[in-house]
């Protein structure tokens, strides 16, 4: 692509972000994402969890950064996938539903470019959603419990900045996983003109994947499920960093992203736009 056409696409991309982040509904969603870490932090302050408590909760009172990790692991279970499903389901189906799709295509916007820009904006939203959770978690945690050294899952202690780095790595991992869900959502969004229906379908896919992953008889297919490695980010909190599960997790997310963005493109490139 020439510089000029890239610049032109940059403008379209910014307009797409404005569309997502200019919408009150989406601000409300981000606000809800931000409330959870605050609740976790306040609850831990009022009623301190025991050091032996599971997950990241045990560490909260020793280091505020654990609030961010606890909030992320809680919200990755429902609120974050809900937010991503809703926005991804809306991506193409919402424009089709309102009829704005036909006016974008006749501008003209090439269908490949449209899918690329839509997906890029979804990735930005996924990253923003994760940052909202982690950011408010860190602020609330540091305010109530302070920072200092962080005890990793492997027992090693690292300094505050090292801890911050680990939190950043975990956030990146979560954003990659959510982007894979966004790719699935983008594909579903090209199949229908009902944005809410598309969003619900993606959320159901997420939940079904989670459920299938818990059934022991189905353990053979487990590793192929899109959500199998989502909670493997504990790997990134060991010393040294382990990629036993996080590695396959990144690979799985990458493959799902590739397959479903390609499917969305293939479907959309030839689709009759009759809305």
């Amino acid at each position, binding site marked *: 692509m020439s510089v000029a056409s890239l610049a*032109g696409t940059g*403008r379209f991309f*910014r*307009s797409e972000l404005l569309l997502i982040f200019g*919408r009150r509904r989406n601000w409300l969603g981000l606000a809800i994402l931000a409330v959870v870490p605050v609740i976790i932090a306040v609850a831990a302050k009022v009623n301190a969890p025991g050091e032996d408590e599971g997950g990241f909760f045990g560490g909260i009172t020793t280091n505020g950064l654990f609030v961010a990790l606890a909030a992320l692991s809680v919200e990755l279970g429902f609120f974050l996938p809900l937010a991503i499903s809703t926005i991804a389901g809306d991506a193409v189906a919402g424009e089709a539903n309102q*009829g704005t799709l*036909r006016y974008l295509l006749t*501008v003209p916007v090439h269908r490949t470019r449209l899918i690329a820009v839509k997906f890029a904006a979804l990735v930005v939203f996924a990253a923003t959603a994760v940052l909202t959770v982690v950011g408010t978690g860190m602020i609330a945690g540091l305010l109530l419990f302070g920072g200092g050294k962080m005890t990793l899952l492997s027992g090693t202690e690292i300094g505050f900045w090292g801890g911050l780095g680990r939190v950043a790595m975990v956030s990146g991992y979560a954003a990659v996983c959510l982007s894979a869900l966004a790719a699935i959502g983008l594909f579903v969004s090209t199949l229908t003109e009902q944005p809410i229906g598309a969003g619900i379908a993606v959320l159901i896919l997420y939940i079904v994947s989670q459920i299938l992953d818990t059934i022991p008889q189905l353990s053979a297919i487990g590793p192929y499920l899109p959500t199998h490695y989502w909670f493997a980010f504990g790997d990134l909190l060991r010393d040294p960093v382990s990629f036993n599960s996080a590695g396959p997790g990144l690979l799985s997310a990458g493959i799902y992203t590739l397959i479903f963005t390609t499917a969305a493109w293939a479907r959309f490139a030839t689709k009759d*736009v*009759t809305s």
Partner: protein
Amino acid sequence: MSLAVSSEGLTKRFRSGQVAVNAVGLAVPAGSVYGFLGPNGSGKTTTIRMLLGLIEPTAGSSNLLGTTSFAALPDVGSLVEGPAFHLYLSGRDNLRRLDAADRHADPATAAARIDEALDRVGLLAAARKRYRAYSLGMRQRLALAGTLLRPRKLLILDEPTNGLDPQGTREVRSIISGLAAEGTTVMLSTHLLSEVEQICTHAGVMHLGKLVAQGSLPALRAGSETRVRVETSHPAEAGRCLEALGLKDVSSADGEARGLLGDLAPEDIVAGLVRAGVPVRGFAVERPGLEELFVHLTGEGFDVSG
């Protein structure tokens, strides 16, 4: 004569099995204002969607400005099946979005072009209002503004005056005429035959998915014949006189007689009537209107054909 829009055997069969557009061969001359007529459900919008590349034809092909639709689209402004914008954005923000999506548009001039387009359709005062709060006519005007964001060589407008008040309708017609005068080719679908009479140079008529007539307005009118009508107190006598003068298909009813003019001169007929002593109260040459032509081509029936 170069064609701004052309198609050959353009056909669309929907998954339902219905053939909505059947072997349509459009020929819209460059520089013309082409009225695309047809009853509800006759396939106008479906044809326009194919021209713009929104839907894939089942068979046949089409060209815009002598090239493929995607290559031509930067020079084409279009309105398809009514306006559609983001509800919670203002009119101006909606146009910003359209302009941002256009990678051929110059961002440096965007603000000026957007305001000019809004001004042109009389929407500048409501530019900051959310689209949600726009009335039907305001929405239609905004859609038109969207087609005017850049200079265009061709406008394809599906019912551009739908929902507009009389001033808006006149305004839009004058905008279209103005653009046409500057050399823009305009293809517009409409149900208003008076609109076609007023601003179109050419027309095509769709019926049941087929293009049943197409050509310049004079050529289309020439297809049906001019009649004379004589108002008189003696219709039978007048009828006999018209026959004697050589008119075909003469009929007389109470207070009047009619016949096909053929290639006779109207003044000779009046003279003949007076010579024969027929009392003439009124005399009219009736050129068939588009409406008669339209009804003749597409039938009297009111029900849409499923």
